[in-house]
């Protein structure tokens, strides 16, 4: 039993890390008042680009970086539409998902199902061969994700730039007269969320699967959207949510490995259902405490009546 638990616990971070990274990006974006449904598409583009770069002979870190930049590029298209041209954020977000999925399918056509060597786990490196299993299964990006979480939390909560960003999400008119450039803050926040969303996607292909297949994001982008809401836009709670979902997801392969028969569809559904239940309970307990950024999804125009 303890062997089973250990092997399960060792794989959880690998499932949780991409969710955490993408969700942190989304927190930044939505704290600036931009409702962003695009992660599914942004992650797809990141995953495809990262895989292509690594297959083209570059190192995994280059793959992750280029994947992140590709996610940012797509995200900026979304940003251009909603911030500069004031398009509807919900519709544009959905369109961005479609565009991201389409683009990744198109450019990744020839790369499908061709395994490659991605980022090694600690246990696979020369220096880490003697690490205990729980640590040996992890990789550098997981550490990066944890650092990122602390950094984002502190930056949003404590720094002056974070204060300005939150002001834009709470009351853009007030931020505007206080001298904050609302449009620029929102664009930067969208760019940051794209960067992290792309990185999360690239993690899935370059680090986790080390192969690219179409549709490999498999709804994780939507989980990220839900995660952020349920976590009340708090980075710490996002970690809890990501671990929860990652933990449930990691359970399936483990159960199969020890020979527990399980209908595969139920297994695939379980992480989603579990996360939903836990978060609904959590939400009921915090009862109506309104934590969403007050101006989330509202397009700001200085001349409007506020």
């Amino acid at each position, binding site marked *: 039993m303890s062997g089973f638990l250990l092997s399960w616990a060792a794989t959880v971070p690998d499932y949780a890390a991409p969710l955490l990274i993408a969700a942190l990006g989304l927190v930044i974006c939505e704290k600036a008042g931009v409702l962003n449904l695009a992660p599914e598409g942004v992650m797809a583009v990141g995953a495809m680009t990262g895989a292509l770069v690594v297959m083209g002979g570059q190192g995994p870190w280059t793959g992750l970086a280029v994947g992140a930049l590709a996610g940012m590029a797509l995200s900026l298209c979304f940003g251009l539409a909603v911030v500069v041209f004031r398009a509807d954020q919900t519709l544009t977000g959905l369109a961005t998902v479609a565009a991201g999925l389409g683009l990744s399918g198109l450019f990744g056509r020839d790369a499908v199902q061709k395994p490659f060597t991605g980022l090694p786990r600690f246990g696979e490196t020369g220096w880490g061969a003697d690490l205990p299993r729980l640590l040996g299964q992890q990789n550098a990006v997981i550490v990066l994700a944890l650092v990122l979480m602390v950094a984002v939390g502190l930056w949003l909560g404590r720094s002056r730039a974070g*204060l*300005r960003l939150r002001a834009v999400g*709470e009351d853009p008119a007030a*931020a505007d*007269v*206080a*001298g904050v450039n609302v449009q620029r803050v929102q664009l930067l926040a969208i760019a940051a969320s794209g960067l992290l969303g792309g990185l999360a996607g690239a993690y899935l292909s370059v680090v986790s699967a080390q192969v690219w297949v179409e549709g490999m994001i498999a709804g994780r982008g939507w989980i990220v959207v839900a995660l952020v809401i349920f976590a009340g836009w708090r980075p710490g709670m996002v970690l809890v949510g990501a671990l929860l979902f990652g933990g449930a997801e990691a359970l399936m392969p483990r159960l199969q490995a020890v020979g527990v028969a399980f209908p595969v569809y139920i297994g695939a559904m379980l992480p989603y259902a579990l996360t939903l239940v836990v978060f609904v309970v959590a939400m009921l307990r915090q009862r109506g405490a309104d934590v969403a950024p*007050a101006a989330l999804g509202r397009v700001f125009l200085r001349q409007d009546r506020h």
Partner: protein
Amino acid sequence: MTPSDTSGRGRAPALLMRDIDKAFDGHPALTGAGFRLEYGHVHALVGENGAGKSTIMNVATAVYAADAGEVIVDGYGTALRTPAEALSAGLGMVHQHFRLVGRFTVAENVALALGGAGQPCSLSEAARRVREKAAELDFRLDPHARVERLSIAEQQRAEVLRVLLLGARILILDEPTAVLTAAEARALLALVRRLADEGRAVALVTHKLHEVAGYCDRVTIMRQGRTVLAAAEVAGADLNDFARLAVGELPDTPRPAPVTPGAPLLEIENLSVRRGDGSAAVEGLSLSLRAGEILGIAGVGGNGQPELVDCLSGLSPAVAGTVRLAGQEATRAPVRRRRRAGLAVIPADRSDSALIGGLPLAQNLALTGVWRGAFGPFWWLNKARMRRAAETAITERDIRGGGVATPAGLLSGGNAQKLLLARELGPGARVIVAHSPSRGLDLRATRAVHDALRQAVREGAACLLISEDLEEIMTLSNRIAVMNHGRLSAPMPVAEASAQALGALMAGHA
């Protein structure tokens, strides 16, 4: 303030605006308007609702971009393109609707703006400066209090303080006293006077002419987007001339003849209401209101008035006591049954709890009638009938600034209130609960509101008038009671009520 800051006195005007045009979606709000403000002066800007007072001040601080005209600060004609640039040019504005982030603390709001002016500022530094400035101005203000938990007067103090901390030499206050009680307003105006005497320039938008007479050096009057009186001396002028210029000739309304009240329409016994946090808002309140009379409830704001209104309108429950509406027991009745019994409510915050800003005029007007089936059966809304009703209301009540399809949120304060009156004071209204119904309204609109209430009462309704404005209470009411800490004093006939007696009751030592 350093002497160099005051050296502007006697030189170029602090703020000079010429030939400003500004239109919103093709509707002109300003046509050739101007404004000239000197250092050392408190300069009143007066005019009816929708005259363009807020608009021209927003142009000055670059919140709105003018279509034509020039804005010159300190004699330099550099164009200000954003509110941030206006701030660093020394222009600070306290907006009619405060521009503070509600979920932030006072210190956070200050830090936000200070950072923007290029002066790095940590939270503890901001808190320290708030505390210092508050002491200097004789304010009570906790820098770590969340803005949304502060009273309106405190929020306003936070705004003033922030603008001053940013180093504003030209201060614009848009209807600062509309939301204050008389004592709070006096304190603010005294501060404004002091700031001007120290050498700053202050523009004060107001509807109250006694403020112009008591605290201002100059007055500019606007009407329908034009400046009709520019920077006139206040000393020695006749206030009635100003009133006439601002809103035109006002007919004298005769004092209403004493009425013989009819049957009791609203009977409240021992009513108690709690606030959201469990504290007592209204305690053991009893009153009886009869057809044909207006019962005025005076009192300093925050003594349970909004909670009483919410309870009577059915939005929050009573913890004890009974309410009878037009003879029917209604203590626990849902909103719909109260409305059917003839309850009409004019809440203090019309944009928050009475009108829906995004919906057109016609639909706002129909909101309550739809219940009664006035616009067709429940499965079919008769839009044509709604539009006709709205057209009638617009002409009858003289609602300006939009047609049946205009979103209510675009109306000026006075016109929004007329819209609300048109809806609430229809033929079915028997018990009218009105809370500060003329708050923020110009003289003419105030008169229209008062006339509408008198008219409704003459036609057999009863009115509970809750107001912090003693003058309003004294002119309208037949009987007057005072609310203090959730309790109501015994009502007295208006003939026996003096401002002193009421004032003593309001202060709680009588």
